[in-house]
């Protein structure tokens, strides 16, 4: 199909297809073979949520037992049992042995939690741990502040270590964005601290205490406040919010309040609950803990030290009546309603291991209409255009339609598994298009049995770009997922992606990790990108235009795109990507059209079977692969420059990336006669590398110096040495000791140079 035909065809379909009729026959619930896993995934999800709620209720009940009856030992035993049970959460997908399977399977009663539910359960372990440790410590002859400080340091440290395990990045705790919201939390803490003082909160230190005692008390309060916020807002709230949505925020606040049941009167507990909700709201809005910790410190110090010092310790008698309880209950209900209110566009979505999307981006929808030329500071670089606000509306997750395009060329042995995985999606609004790109094996025969259930397109061999273009021309959904015929989707993939897109109509692309399976579908224990590599998200235009091929992107199958964004850049130019590499075009160009979200979840399996089109078979230099990468990078870089010009974006010219330059240098040094860029000279490439390294705002200067040193050495070295240098540079497996150091030198979006979008 020619490009003009393609565009015309798409426009006709767009003009005639009503929004409600986007789903085709393939959106019907999976039948027959797909039913079991489909139902089991749904049931597992429901069971997971039920177990999570049961766990939260049990923790609150134990706190009530502990404080209502004063049975400290019974409470500690109950907490110990709960802690043990929580730690038996069933392992996630990946390698597991029969022994671990049976143990956790028996204890978990066969429930099959999602990744988010698993993380939430694990984070809840911190709550009973607080009580088991605080009761278990020998604090008889230790002052209250010293005891609190000890417990705070132990629990705070445990929470900081646990955070990355449950998918929360500790560095986001220090986020100080949205200062006005953070200040509101501090003022709220001050006000509620005054209320707590009026209601008889205990003093931090006795009258006439020494300066040393007062100082220790202050240090203990600050440490305790930080530890409590890290536990309840930083870890528990984030993970519960991921698993339960807005209700998770309330659940975390309820847990927090329950641990204060022994604080004194009902009104005092309500004050603490209200303070917890205020801090929770701040964390939801800012994505960081700074305001919550500040508010908590002001709350505790104000209630226990400042207000008593200023106003004395006598309290009005009427405050012991029902009036304050009613007023606080109303205020708590109001705060609950505010938190449960519909998404207002300023909230941070909890993303495991990733920096949250910057707040300004969360409220900057728009894709299809492009970018304005309004100047702003975005992504750390000055003078960038921001995404233009449009009238695009938020959609519920279920409303968003997802189109899965499966492109196939001679992957007959895997194609049915790919199609079945697409049909088994839990998401209710999924359509499937399978494009067979001139297969000569038994693919078409296998596809026959799907006629009538999925949209099958049979075409002559034209390459990956032509297959994707043909698939995109067949339908119109809100979201498009690309799936290679040898890969497999997880049942929850479309739902997770739809949820991410639903959170902000401006998001252009959502990427996720994939676990690597072998030809027989067995997990290899490897994920792509690797788990220790943070995947960038947010407004990445600055990085994309400064060093596009040095950013760690998930491969084509690890992405979903908003159709409105794709419409601006489609069709994929088939002449530029004659065989493969079409995903380079989509992955890179969509980054200029809206914010990017990186999901922590593994949503698909990537199969390595020895016949992969673009997968190195071993960590050894393959110069054909290097030259192919150079060609993809060059045409993609040109397409990026064209789009940036169309959008009125400023960018450094020419677009350079260290990974692309390294590929060109290696190709030139080792096989100059086949090098695809005739004008290249080794020293000129080294000089360009200095410029490219200078643009890498995501790495520290020692790493830039290492890059420049490598280029200088590779440019000067004889070919055998250059080959060795190339393998060390391109394959992290060949420099395991150096990787730990390199990872510490990263500070923002972008990763150590690799092969671009693969």
């Amino acid at each position, binding site marked *: 199909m020619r490009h003009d035909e393609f565009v015309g065809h798409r426009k006709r379909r767009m003009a005639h297809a009503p929004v409600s009729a986007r789903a085709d026959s393939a959106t019907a619930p999976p039948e027959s073979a797909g039913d079991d896993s489909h139902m089991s995934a749904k049931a597992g999800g429901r069971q997971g949520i039920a177990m999570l709620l049961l766990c939260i209720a049990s923790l609150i009940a134990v706190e009530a037992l502990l404080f209502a009856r004063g049975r400290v030992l019974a409470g500690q035993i109950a907490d110990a049992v709960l802690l043990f049970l929580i730690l038996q959460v069933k392992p996630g997908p990946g390698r597991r042995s029969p022994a671990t399977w049976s143990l956790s399977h028996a204890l978990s009663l066969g429930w099959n939690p999602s990744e988010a539910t698993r993380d939430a359960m694990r984070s809840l372990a911190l709550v009973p741990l607080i009580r*088991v440790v605080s009761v278990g410590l*020998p604090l008889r002859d230790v002052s209250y502040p010293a005891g609190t400080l000890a417990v705070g340091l132990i629990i705070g440290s445990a929470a900081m270590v646990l955070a990355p395990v449950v998918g929360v990045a500790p560095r986001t705790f220090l986020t100080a964005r949205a200062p006005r919201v953070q200040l509101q939390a501090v003022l709220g803490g001050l006000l509620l601290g005054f209320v707590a003082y009026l209601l008889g909160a205990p003093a931090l230190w006795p009258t006439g205490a020494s300066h040393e005692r007062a100082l220790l008390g202050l240090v203990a309060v600050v440490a305790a406040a930080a530890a409590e916020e890290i536990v309840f807002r930083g870890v528990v709230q984030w993970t519960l919010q991921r698993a339960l949505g807005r209700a998770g925020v309330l659940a975390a606040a309820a847990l927090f309040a329950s641990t204060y049941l022994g604080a004194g009167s009902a009104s005092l507990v309500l004050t603490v609950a209200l303070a917890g909700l205020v801090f929770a709201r701040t964390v939801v809005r800012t994505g960081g803990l700074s305001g919550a910790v500040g508010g908590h410190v002001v709350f505790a110090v104000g209630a226990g030290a400042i207000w008593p010092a200023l106003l004395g310790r006598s309290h009005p008698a009427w405050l012991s009546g029902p009036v304050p309880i009613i007023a606080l209950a109303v205020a708590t209900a109001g705060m609950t309603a505010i938190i449960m209110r519909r998404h207002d566009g300023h909230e941070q979505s909890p993303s495991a291991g990733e920096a949250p999307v910057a707040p300004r981006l969360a409220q900057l929808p728009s894709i299809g209409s492009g970018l304005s030329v309004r100047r702003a500071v975005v992504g750390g670089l000055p003078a960038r255009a921001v995404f233009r606000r449009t009238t695009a509306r938020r959609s519920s997750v279920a409303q968003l339609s997802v189109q899965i395009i499966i492109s196939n060329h001679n992957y007959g042995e895997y194609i049915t598994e790919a199609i079945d995985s697409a049909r088994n999606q839990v998401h209710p609004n999924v359509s499937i298009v399978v494009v067979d790109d001139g297969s000569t094996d038994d693919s078409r025969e296998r596809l026959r049995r799907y006629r009538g259930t999925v949209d099958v397109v049979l075409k002559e061999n034209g390459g990956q770009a032509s297959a994707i273009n043909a698939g995109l021309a067949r339908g119109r959904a809100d979201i498009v997922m690309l799936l290679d015929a040898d890969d497999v989707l997880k049942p929850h993939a479309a739902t997770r992606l739809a949820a991410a897109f639903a959170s902000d109509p401006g998001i252009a692309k959502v990427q996720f990790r994939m676990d690597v399976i072998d030809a027989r579908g067995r997990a290899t224990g490897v994920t792509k990108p690797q788990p220790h590599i943070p995947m960038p998200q947010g407004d990445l235009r600055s990085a994309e235009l400064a060093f596009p091929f040095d950013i760690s992107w998930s491969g084509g199958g690890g992405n979903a795109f908003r159709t409105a964004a794709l419409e601006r850049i489609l069709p994929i130019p088939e002449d530029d990507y004659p065989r493969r590499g079409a995903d380079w075009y989509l992955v890179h160009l969509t980054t200029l059209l809206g914010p990017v979200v990186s999901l922590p979840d593994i949503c698909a399996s990537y199969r390595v079977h020895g016949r992969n089109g673009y997968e190195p078979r071993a960590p050894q230099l393959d110069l054909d692969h290097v030259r192919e990468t150079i060609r993809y990078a060059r045409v993609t870089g040109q397409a990026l420059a064209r789009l940036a010009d169309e959008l009125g974006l400023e960018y450094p010219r020419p677009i350079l990336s260290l990974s692309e330059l390294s590929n060109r240098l290696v190709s030139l040094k080792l096989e100059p006669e086949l090098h695809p860029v005739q004008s290249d000279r080794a020293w000129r490439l080294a000089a360009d590398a200095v410029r490219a390294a200078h643009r890498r705002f995501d790495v520290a200067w020692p790493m830039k110096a290492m890059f420049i040193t490598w280029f200088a050495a590779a440019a000067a070295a004889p070919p055998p040495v250059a080959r060795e240098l190339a393998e060390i540079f391109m394959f992290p497996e060949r420099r395991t000791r150096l990787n730990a150091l390199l990872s510490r030198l990263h500070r923002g979006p972008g990763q150590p140079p690799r092969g671009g979008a693969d």
Partner: protein
Amino acid sequence: MSDLLPPLVQHAVASKTVFSASQAFGVVTLVLLVVLLLEREVLRIARAQPARLKALSIAAVPLLVAVALTIWARLAIILR
């Protein structure tokens, strides 16, 4: 005022000697620690997922600190 060490808990701990407290609260901590460490070893031998082992370790370390401090306190009293 902190939920890390509520007055009720502090009072319960302070009302006992180190010896009697460690025979009550300390035993619970110790038993849980031993169970978690045993489970961790079993899972390690069975090559369980690293994330699972890490979660167990993270829970075990604070308990280990509590048990170590309790033993140290008892020893300090005996040696004194």
